[in-house]
C-alpha cells in the first residue's frame, strides 16, 4: 500500500538548503542535515515531528515549554531540548522512547493544569496546538482536584490584540517576536510561577504595526485578534492564497472567507517579500470586501440591470469617439488585467490623456510597510507605457472613463463620466460595480517589480460585481469592437504582448512565489525589506 505520508505537524518553514552537510540518525533512520540545524529541524527533514510550543524557526530559542525533549546518544539517561541542541555528525536521536513519551505526556498535563475549559468559546479551537498535542501525546483524564488559578481573561493589549492570561502557556513567542522581529519591545512576562502573565508596560499599549503577528504565532488561544474574535469558527473558513492590497509591498497572504464574506488575512510565506509576517493595516483590508460595496450598476442614483447599464455607458461614449477632451483615469488599485482592458478601451475611444491616481500615501517603515498604499502602481504605470500612453493629469477633460476611482479629483467641467468601481462614485453618469481584488484572478506588480498572482479567494458573487476588465470588455463589445477577452489570462496576454517587461510571460506560467521583472528593480532598498535572492 503506497499511502500518502501526512506528517503530524505542519512545518511553518520548509527546511533551508543545506550548506554544510552532516549525517546523523533520527529514530534509527539516517538524516542528512545542515550543521546549523537544531534537532527539531533535522528531524523535520525526514518527516519526523518533534512537538514544540515555544520554539519558532524565526525566533531565538527559549527552551520554555519542555515539549521537545528527546534522547540523544550523547546524553544517556537524560533528555535534552530538541530546539536548543544542534545537530552533530553521528548523533543518534530518539524521539519516541518511553522516557520521551512520558515526558511529553507529563508536560501536556502540566500545561493543562490551569487551562480553562474554553474550547467551546475560544477562537483558537480547531487550530490549537494544545488540542492537537493533547490527543497525540496525552489523551488522559485530568488528575487535578484543586481549583484552577484565575487570571485576567480579556486584557486589551492594544488596538488589534486581546489577551486571555488563563489560556496562556507562557511560551514567550510573542515577547520574542516583539523584541526580535518587530523590534519594538512592547511585551514582557510579569509575575512568577503560575501567576506569571504577558503584559504591556504601563501607559504603552501594544500598538506596533506588526502586533497582529503575535496572534498568529501564539500556539494557543491566549492572544486573539480583536477584529476576528467571535466572528467565525475557523473550520468553516475557506483558505485561499492571494496578495495583500494594503500597500505596495505585496505581502503574500492567505485570505479566509465563507460565501461572499471575507473574514481575515493570514501571512503566507514568501522569503523575498514578507518572510512569514504581515502588518496590521494589511489585516484589515478584508473589510473592503464586505463593507461599502456597490453591488448593482447605477446611473444618477438609479439601479440598472447589467446589460442596460453597459448599453447606456456605450451610448454616452459613442459620440465622443475620436474627439478631444476625453480622458482615462486608472487607480493604482487596479489589477494589471483591469488596467490593460481599460487602456484598450481608451485606445479604441481615441483617448490620449491618461492619469494614474490612487490612495494617499501613508506611513511606511524599513521592513514590510511601504508608503505607497496602492498595491499595483508599478503595474499600472507599466501598462500605460505598454499602450503607448504617458501618464499625466486629467487637465480640463469634459469626458472621463475611470477604472476604479481612488483619489480621483473630477475636473470641474466634466460632462460625461463612466466609472467602474467597487464603491459608488459621486457625480458619475454610470457606475459599474467592480469586484475587489480578493474576488479576482489577476496579477499585481509590487514596489520592487515583482509580478505576483491574485486568486479568486472570495468565490461567491456579490450583486452584479465582476472584475473591472469584464465591464471594459462589455463596453467595447457594445461599441462594436470584437476583442476576445474571456478570462484574466487573456487580459494579461493583452498586456504581455505590448509590455517589454513581460516578454515571454504567461498568466499560467507565473510561479506561486511570483517572478521579478528585473528592469523594474529599484536602486535603493529600505534597510530590512526582504529582497529577491
Amino acid at each position, binding site marked *: *500500500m503506497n499511502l500518502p505520508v501526512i506528517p503530524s505537524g505542519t512545518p511553518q518553514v520548509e527546511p533551508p538548503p543545506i550548506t554544510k552537510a552532516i549525517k546523523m540518525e533520527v529514530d534509527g533512520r539516517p538524516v542528512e542535515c545542515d550543521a546549523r540545524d537544531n534537532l527539531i529541524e533535522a528531524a523535520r527533514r525526514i518527516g519526523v515531528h518533534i512537538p514544540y510550543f515555544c520554539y519558532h524557526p524565526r525566533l531565538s530559542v527559549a527552551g520554555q515549554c519542555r515539549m521537545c525533549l528527546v534522547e540523544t546518544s550523547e546524553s544517556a539517561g537524560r533528555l535534552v531540548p530538541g530546539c536548543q541542541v544542534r545537530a552533530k555528525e553521528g548523533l543518534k536521536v530518539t524521539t519516541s522512547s518511553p522516557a520521551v513519551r512520558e515526558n511529553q505526556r507529563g508536560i501536556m498535563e502540566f500545561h493543562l493544569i490551569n487551562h480553562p*475549559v474554553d*474550547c467551546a468559546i475560544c477562537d483558537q*479551537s480547531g487550530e490549537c496546538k494544545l488540542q492537537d498535542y493533547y490527543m497525540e501525546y496525552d489523551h488522559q483524564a485530568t488528575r487535578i482536584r484543586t481549583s484552577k488559578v484565575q487570571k485576567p481573561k480579556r486584557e486589551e493589549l492594544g488596538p488589534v490584540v486581546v489577551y486571555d492570561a488563563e489560556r496562556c502557556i507562557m511560551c514567550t513567542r510573542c515577547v520574542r517576536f516583539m523584541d526580535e522581529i518587530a523590534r519594538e519591545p512592547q511585551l514582557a512576562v510579569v509575575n512568577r510561577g503560575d501567576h506569571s502573565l504577558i503584559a504591556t508596560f504601563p501607559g504603552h499599549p501594544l500598538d506596533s504595526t506588526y502586533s497582529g503577528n503575535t496572534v498568529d504565532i501564539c500556539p494557543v488561544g491566549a492572544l486573539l485578534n480583536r477584529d476576528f474574535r467571535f466572528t467565525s469558527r475557523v473550520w468553516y473558513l475557506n483558505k485561499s492564497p492571494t496578495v495583500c492590497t494594503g500597500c505596495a509591498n505585496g505581502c503574500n497572504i492567505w485570505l479566509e472567507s465563507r460565501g461572499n464574506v471575507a473574514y481575515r488575512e493570514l501571512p503566507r510565506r514568501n522569503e523575498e517579500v514578507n518572510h512569514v509576517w504581515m502588518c496590521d493595516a494589511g489585516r484589515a483590508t478584508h473589510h473592503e470586501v464586505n463593507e461599502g460595496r456597490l453591488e448593482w450598476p447605477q446611473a444618477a442614483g438609479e439601479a440598472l440591470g447589467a446589460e442596460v447599464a453597459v448599453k447606456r455607458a456605450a451610448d454616452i461614449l459613442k459620440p465622443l469617439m475620436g474627439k478631444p477632451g476625453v480622458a482615462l483615469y486608472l487607480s493604482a488599485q487596479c489589477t494589471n488585467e483591469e488596467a490593460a482592458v481599460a487602456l484598450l478601451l481608451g485606445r479604441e475611444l481615441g483617448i490620449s490623456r491618461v492619469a494614474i491616481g490612487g490612495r494617499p500615501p501613508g506611513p511606511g517603515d524599513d521592513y514590510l510597510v511601504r508608503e505607497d498604499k496602492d498595491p499595483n502602481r508599478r503595474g499600472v504605470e507599466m501598462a500605460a507605457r505598454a499602450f503607448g500612453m504617458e501618464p499625466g493629469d486629467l487637465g480640463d477633460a469634459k469626458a472621463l472613463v475611470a477604472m476604479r476611482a481612488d483619489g480621483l479629483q473630477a475636473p470641474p467641467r466634466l460632462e460625461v463620466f463612466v466609472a467602474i468601481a467597487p464603491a459608488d462614485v459621486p457625480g458619475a453618469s454610470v457606475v459599474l460595480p467592480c469586484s475587489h481584488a480578493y474576488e479576482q484572478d489577476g496579477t499585481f506588480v509590487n514596489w520592487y517589480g515583482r509580478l505576483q498572482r491574485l486568486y479568486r479567494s472570495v468565490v461567491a458573487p456579490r450583486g452584479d460585481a465582476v472584475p473591472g476588465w469584464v465591464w471594459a470588455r462589455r463596453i467595447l463589445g457594445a461599441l462594436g469592437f470584437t476583442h476576445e477577452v474571456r478570462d484574466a489570462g487573456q487580459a494579461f496576454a493583452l498586456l504581455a504582448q505590448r509590455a517589454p517587461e513581460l516578454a515571454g510571460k504567461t498568466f499560467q506560467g507565473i510561479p506561486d512565489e511570483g517572478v521579478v521583472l528585473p528592469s523594474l528593480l529599484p536602486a535603493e532598498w529600505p534597510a530590512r525589506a526582504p529582497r529577491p535572492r
Partner: protein
Amino acid sequence: MTESRVDSRQSTVDSQDPFAREAELPHSLVTINLGPSHPAMHGVVRLTVTLDGETIARAVPEIGFLHRGFEKSSENSTWHQVLPYTDRLNYVSPILNNVGYIMAVEKLCGVKDPPRSQYLRVVAGEISRICDHLTCIAAFGLELGAFTVFLYGVEARELLWDRISELTGARVTTSWTRIGGLASDAPPGWAEKVNECMPRVLELTDEIDALLTRNRIFIDRTRGIGVIGGDEALDWGFTGPCLRASGVNYDVRKAHPYLVYDKMDFEVPLGQRGDTHDRYWVRIQEIRQSARIIEQGLAALPPGPVIIDDWRYALPPKKEVYSSIEGVMAHFKHFMEGVKVPRGEAYGYTEGANGELGFHVISNGQGKPYRVHVRAPGFPILSALPRLIEGHMVADLIPIFDSINMIGGEVEQ
C-alpha cells in the same frame, strides 16, 4: 431477446384433438420484467426473465435501484459517521453490520472492547439474526400464500425489535457500536425482558415450523427446487444459511470464533439437498440455535463498563467533557476531526445473517477512512440466482428468490 421456434417434426398426435394440435403451434420466447417495483422483489431488484412457455429460459438480475454509494460516502465521513451507513446495509439485522464494521476498525486500532460489551454484542447480534431469519421466512410464507406464517413471523419479530429499541433507541437504525465498545449499556431489566419474550418467539417459530416444514403444498413447491451442490455453492461464493443448506459446514462463528462465540454452546445446522426447502429449514434451525446463544449470553453477562477508557478512541464521559479541559479537547477532536485510526489496512469478517459479512478498511492515519469495502454476503448469492432458477417453472421463481433472502441494502451498497 425473442427467438422463434417452430416444431418441424411430423405430427404424430391425433389431428382431431384441438388441444394436442395447439402444442405444436409455433411459439416464441417471451421476455417479461419482474420488478424493480414488485412486492415480491425484496428491496428493489429487477429480474428480466425470458420464458419458454412456463419454463424460465433465462433470467438476468439487475441491481442498482437502491445504490447509495456507501463505500464512497464513507471516505468523506469520520470513522464513526460511517456507522449509520452500516445500519442501512442489511437493514433487517443492522446490529450485525454495526458489529462487523466496528470490529474491522478495532482490528486497525488494536483495541478490544470490554467483556460486557462483547457479550452484549453477541446477544444483540443473535437477536438481529433471529429477526433476519424470521423476516425471510415470514415473507417466504406470505408469497406462497401462507399469510398466517407472515403474521406469526412478524409478531415474533416485533417482540425482538422492541427489545432492540430498548437497547439502542431505534428499531432498525441502531448505530449502536463504537470503537472499543458500545454507545450505551443495556437498560436495567433488559435481560429479564429478553428472557421473557424468547419463549414466545420460539413458540411462534414452532408454529411456523409446524405449518410449513411438513406441509404438502410447501414441500411440493420447495423440495428439489433450486438445487445447488456444496462445491458449486462454494465456487459461487455462497456463505451463511444458503451454503450450509448445501451441506457445507462453514460458519464464521465456529470457523474463526470472534467476540465470545467460543464460549457459547451451539450447533451449526446443515442441509442435505441444497434446495429451497433446505434453505428454509436451515433458517428455522438457526433461530433455535441463536436462542440458545442468547440465553447463555445473558446468563453469563458480566458486569463492568461497555466501552474502553482510552480517549484516543472512545469519547470521554460527559462529566469530563463539561468540567475538564482534557475532556473537552478530546471531545472536540473526536467530533471535528474523527478518531485517528492508525495507518494500515484490515479485513474484519463476521457471520452476518446471510453469511460472511466482511469489511475491508484502509486508513492513512486520518480521521476518515481512506477506503472502505464491504463484502456483502448477499451479492455472490444473488449472482447465482440465474443458475438457481433457469430451467424451473415460472412459479418456482418466487420461492427460490425468497430462499436466498436478498437484501437490497447490502447487495447494492
